[in-house]
């Protein structure tokens, strides 16, 4: 029992500081609402839990600084510093439109062997076949229209998104795209509709609101060389808009 003298354990102390730092970082993200750039609002409660849990763990860590004798700082502590450092250094802006370059854009939906239509057309669509896509109903309309392009032919549609173009897309066409987040930025997909528009050349990544009429077209996938019938919007008017506050469309399991 020669441990009477006061002892300061650096390893335990580092772990305490790290837990506090991560806890505080999580809290600050939630507090500043910056967290919505990283994860779906549904998931925020888990981050709050983690922040609280780490705080409690850190609290009980305090006596160990004095009581534990052998515990050197571990190399692994360095790893926990990575997210903290990145979090401090980087001003969060969320995913940018450039992500389409690595993630690609999905405009093809599997149309085979579905037994039940997604959209109950009578209830969800406004009068006279006018579709207004907003953040809340975006996912439902997107999948519903892509499933049955023929059913929605000649419907009028209004939606907002950013302009995406690549080599596979013909002149006079573009994709109006949105980022779709299920859970976190890692599972974000870029989705959208193919548009036909000849009047002016739109800049890539510009945010626009378009109004047009739905039509269908055959699209050949560059990899599979497979033809599929996809919806096409014949654009009537384009309006430049400022990017929305929330760039993502969040998928909500409950609706």
């Amino acid at each position: 029992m020669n441990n009477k003298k006061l002892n300061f354990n650096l390893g335990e102390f580092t772990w305490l500081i790290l837990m506090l730092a991560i806890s505080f970082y999580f809290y600050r993200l939630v507090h500043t609402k910056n967290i919505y750039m990283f994860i779906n609002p549904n998931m925020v409660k888990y981050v709050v839990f983690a922040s609280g849990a780490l705080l409690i763990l850190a609290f009980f860590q305090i006596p160990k600084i004095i009581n534990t004798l052998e515990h050197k700082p571990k190399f692994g502590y360095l790893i926990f510093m990575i997210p903290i450092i990145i979090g401090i250094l980087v001003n969060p802006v969320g995913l940018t439109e450039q992500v389409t370059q690595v993630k690609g854009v999905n405009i093809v939906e599997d149309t085979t062997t579905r037994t039940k239509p997604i959209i109950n057309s009578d209830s969800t669509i406004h009068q006279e076949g006018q579709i207004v896509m907003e953040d809340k109903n975006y996912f439902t309309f997107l999948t519903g229209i892509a499933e049955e392009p023929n059913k929605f032919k000649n419907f009028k549609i209004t939606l907002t998104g950013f302009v995406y173009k690549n080599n596979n897309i013909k002149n006079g066409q573009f994709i109006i795209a949105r980022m779709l987040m299920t859970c976190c930025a890692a599972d974000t997909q870029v989705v959208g509709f193919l548009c036909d528009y000849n009047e002016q050349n739109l800049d890539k990544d510009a945010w626009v609101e378009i109004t047009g009429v739905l039509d269908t077209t055959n699209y050949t996938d560059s990899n599979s060389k497979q033809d599929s019938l996809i919806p096409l919007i014949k654009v009537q008017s384009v309006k430049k808009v400022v990017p929305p506050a929330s760039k993502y469309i969040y998928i909500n399991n409950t609706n």
Partner: protein
Amino acid sequence: MESGTDFSTNNKILTIIIGLATLLLFSINILRNIVMPQINTDTLNNFYTIFISIVLEGLPFIIIGALISSFIQIFISEENIIKIIPKNKLMGLFFAAIVGLIFPVCDCAIIPVTRRLIKKGIPTSLAITFMLSVPIVNPIVLVSTYYAFKGKIYMLFARLIFGIIAAMVIGYLIDLLHTGKSLKYSIQLNNFTPSCGCGCHNHQHNKQVHKFHYLFDIIDYTSSETYDTGKLFIIGALISALVQSYIPKEYILSIGQGNLYSIIVMFVLAYILSICSQTDAFIARAFLGQFTIGSVVGFLILGPMLDIKNTLMLTGTFNRKFTIKLIFLIISICFIMAVSANYIIPISLKLLGGV
């Protein structure tokens, strides 16, 4: 307490290597920016965003897993666990595979729990089946799969059934392939008996416990489990974010189509995307039009079992030989499952007249 020193040697080398690799990747990243200032800062920004978001999404569940693991450690005794395991091996495997139905834990949280169960004396084969099936067969994942494949309910059943079969087969075979210890030597020693923070230096808790000790013990175990799993998880998140933001998906998709190639493509995607099992169905549905149905099922069952962050966490738990065998088994069994799903699903749909 003496074992505390040699605990780190093995672990330390691994950590140092991984850490150095990470730093290297990092410095490459920074160098690229210094050397080529014209490089798109967007890419770097997307990398940060993906990395932080994986950490934000996963760390809470790592802590939950650590918490469950410490509860098992404190409150469930070895004898009780042995008692509830069915004697029949097949029954045991099936039981382990469907525990997930009432145990909603995702793929990040399951590894500390599995590690604890093996230490508590659960046979390795059962523990592996449990570990592989829970992220697939759990209510939250099933609900999200249902929503992702709205109107195609057969995808939900395909995921469930093929997932259970794959987990059972892997659990069964791992027993034949590997005899002896499966955990890392250092973990086997059960050495990180954390000192309790209460200031008393008598560690015979089992004899004279007072309620306060339980609390301290749980906190202690949770803390060290969070550290052990968390460090590997963060590295995994880092690598996954790097790959995702620097390698265009098109390169992977261009590996090919067809019955077999499409499975490989989906496996590679599942491996590097490292997304939680409750969200991967939403990604998978986008591929249903372009790839065979079997490959999408393969994506749905392989993803929860094996991905970049998972691999790192496995190496931190099991010894090297065991990890290699396990990964080999997971990939090959899931491949077989995917190939057979290619044939079975269309046939069964025809028989059932489309569910």
